[in-house]
């Protein structure tokens, strides 16, 4: 049981059985990744013999907890990394960070602030009744989307679940089109047809926005397959939550990604909860969620998602490996959402303590951490931060005005965008009856 993973600087953590989350110490991170680098496996031959050989010394794991009783299991799960816990690593020196220009570092801050202000603006209007359905806020997790987008090489593709506003803005979608989509307006990125959970921007290598838990994982494999098929030097990144890993299709994906040697990184955004269910109540865990990849001969590692440098270093390396070596990878990133599962989550403060939420806000907020870092590096001043912040706020407010002023989609548009052939009035679109309303 005893992992190395408890939060050293936080006495009494284990008392709150809620605050448990997987983690992220550097040691754990590196071990599996290295160990699994091994033997080149260009050829996927059916060589059961070869397979049989235990291929690596696995992670520092002990035997599985004997009892699966939830209370017990909880203790087996790790805690979030605190900056203190990885004091030994200076991620800023990592090759993926060392050459960053000050302007780039500042742009990461801008992107994170834009996401946060955008969602706060959206929240206000959701609460006023201007939007329908669900609104899943990404606030608290911004570093993951921004860090990822900052590593995309113009040929990489990404796909995520319904908590998709952050990724959308990070890859360059405009606030106006995104906000208008939330308002259900015809000027929205999906013309008001998809809503909050279904943003797409293929021109920005962003393939959604998927409402059914886990559904995006195999699509991500398809993106990776297509890249490899076309000979494009890019990788696919499929995000999924800590709850989504329990969809059967994810296991199927791990097998196929390894078997087909696909250039894909599955990023598990582990925010500790799937709706009201904490990690330890949803997953039987020996070491981490990512370590399930082990059984499929897929590399995996863990990384803290709160510090952009750490995220970029870890993700950058595995993206490069996917692109060049066609080795799939599962990267489990610890992160945290401040709001409920969706805004409509009435229990948002029941299944976790207000203190826990507060602690993440004060100690692990990715924006605050990054601001501190940039101030320390003297890349920006307090005034500079405030300027970016107010610009982001203003941009979000303007986006809301744009959305409010925008027209609803037309009634006819209900029947558009269903069949390509019909929309384009091709020959194929004109034979037989396509729609059965009058």
């Amino acid at each position, binding site marked *: 049981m005893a992992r190395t993973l408890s939060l050293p600087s936080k006495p009494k953590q284990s008392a709150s059985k809620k605050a448990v989350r997987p983690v992220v110490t550097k040691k754990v991170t590196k071990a599996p990744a290295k160990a699994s680098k091994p033997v080149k496996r260009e050829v996927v031959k059916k060589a059961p013999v070869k397979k049989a050989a235990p291929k690596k010394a696995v992670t520092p794991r002990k035997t599985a907890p004997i009892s699966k009783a939830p209370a017990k299991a909880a203790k087996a799960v790790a805690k979030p990394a605190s900056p203190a816990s990885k004091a030994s690593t200076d991620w800023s020196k990592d090759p993926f960070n060392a050459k960053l220009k000050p302007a780039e570092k500042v742009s990461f801050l801008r992107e994170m602030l834009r996401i946060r202000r955008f969602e706060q603006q959206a929240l206000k209007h959701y609460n006023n009744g201007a*939007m*329908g*359905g*669900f609104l899943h806020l990404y606030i608290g997790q911004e570093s993951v989307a921004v860090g990822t987008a900052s590593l995309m090489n113009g040929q990489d593709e990404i796909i995520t679940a319904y908590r998709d506003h952050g990724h959308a803005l990070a890859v360059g979608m405009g606030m106006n089109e995104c906000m208008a*989509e939330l308002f*259900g*307006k*015809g000027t929205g990125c*999906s013309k*008001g*047809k*998809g*809503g*909050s*959970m*279904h943003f797409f921007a293929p021109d920005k290598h962003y393939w959604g926005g*998927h*409402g*059914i*838990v*886990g*559904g995006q994982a195999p699509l991500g494999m398809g993106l990776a397959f297509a890249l490899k098929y076309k000979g494009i030097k890019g990788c696919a990144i499929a995000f999924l939550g800590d*709850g*989504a890993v*329990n*969809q*059967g*299709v994810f296991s199927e994906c791990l097998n196929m990604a390894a078997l087909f040697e696909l250039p894909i990184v599955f990023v598990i955004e582990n925010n500790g909860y*799937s*709706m*009201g*269910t904490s990690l330890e*109540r*949803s*997953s039987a865990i020996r070491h981490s969620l990512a370590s399930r990849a082990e059984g499929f001969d897929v590399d995996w590692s863990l990384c803290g998602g709160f510090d952009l440098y750490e995220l970029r270093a870890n993700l950058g390396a595995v993206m490069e490996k996917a692109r060049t070596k066609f080795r799939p990878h599962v990267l489990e990133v610890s992160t945290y959402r401040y709001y409920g599962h969706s805004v409509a989550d009435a*229990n948002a403060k029941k*299944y976790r303590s207000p203190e826990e939420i507060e602690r993440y806000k004060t100690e692990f907020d990715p924006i605050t951490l990054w601001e501190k870092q940039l101030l320390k590096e003297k890349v920006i001043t307090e005034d500079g931060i405030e300027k970016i912040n107010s610009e982001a706020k203003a941009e979000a407010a303007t986006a809301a005005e744009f959305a409010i002023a925008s027209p*609803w*989609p037309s*009634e006819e*548009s*209900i*029947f558009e965008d*269903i069949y390509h052939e019909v929309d384009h009035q091709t020959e194929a679109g004109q034979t037989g009856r396509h*729609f*059965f*309303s009058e």
Partner: protein
Amino acid sequence: MPVITYRQALNDAFAEELARDENVFLMGEEVAQYNGAYKVTEGLWQKFGSKRVIDTPISEAAFLGLGVGAAMMGLRPVVELMFWSFAYVGLDQIINNAGCIRYMSGGLINVPMVIRGPANGGTNVGATHSHTPENFLANTPGLKVVCPATPYDAKGLMISSIRDNDTVCFMENTLLYGDLGEVPEGAYTIPLGVAEVKREGIDVSLIAHGRAVLTSLAAAEILSVEHGIEAEVVDLRSIRPLDEETILNSVAKTHRAVLVDENKPFCGVSSQIAALLAEHAFDELDAPVLRVTALDAPAIYSMPLEKLQLPDAQAVVAKVLSSF
């Protein structure tokens, strides 16, 4: 008689059946400690404990299949789908396993399971979350499909479904959970396959299930007050088994049928009713059978437009008037 919500009526049915039969258990995402995503199972975990009311991971295929296996062993699982739309990742378990095992075992094995949850559009959650699969589950012989419209029916049909020895797909509606109605205390059953005439009339039969029944009742009022047309409203309550007799009797009385259905038109529930009327009520009909269904497009997100996609009372009124 106490007046309670549709949600509470279901909750009462669970509480009573859990207490009555120790083989009954509830299972699904967030059903226990969170009290249910839509609070339908509120308080049951506290009352019956973790053996009887069980939270699952987000693994529909696995827990639906687990339900089938447990039911084969004689337990009576009541498996919640947070939305019926999420059944699609576990359809193999529902259709191939729950639906076919009795047949393929030559009757050796039963699957007395209830699969339940909301199946409706109209809440701006987009296409992936707005499916109404009653038609295509009813397309599988071996499965039963039930769609209650009122709190009274919800409780009585749920108790029957739990006691039924076959798999029942029980489809609720998030827009109805807060509806109030008179519901007796204590257990009572409503047989599956028995429709109810919710309003008597002589001029036209409105045939519906689920929330479309309420839409039809509203339309019937307008037709009566504004047009002097007395519509009869037939609530199917269960789609399979289907109460053909009540449908045919009503049409034999009114000689006109308008089918109101939140299902899509293509091979929807209304298509089956239309086929029934063509085969067995041809000589009774004074006008073609007409339908008011969900528009034949994926559910749109945009709030005002989604309203247009589902049948409303005005659309039903217009359709009825067009048949005279």
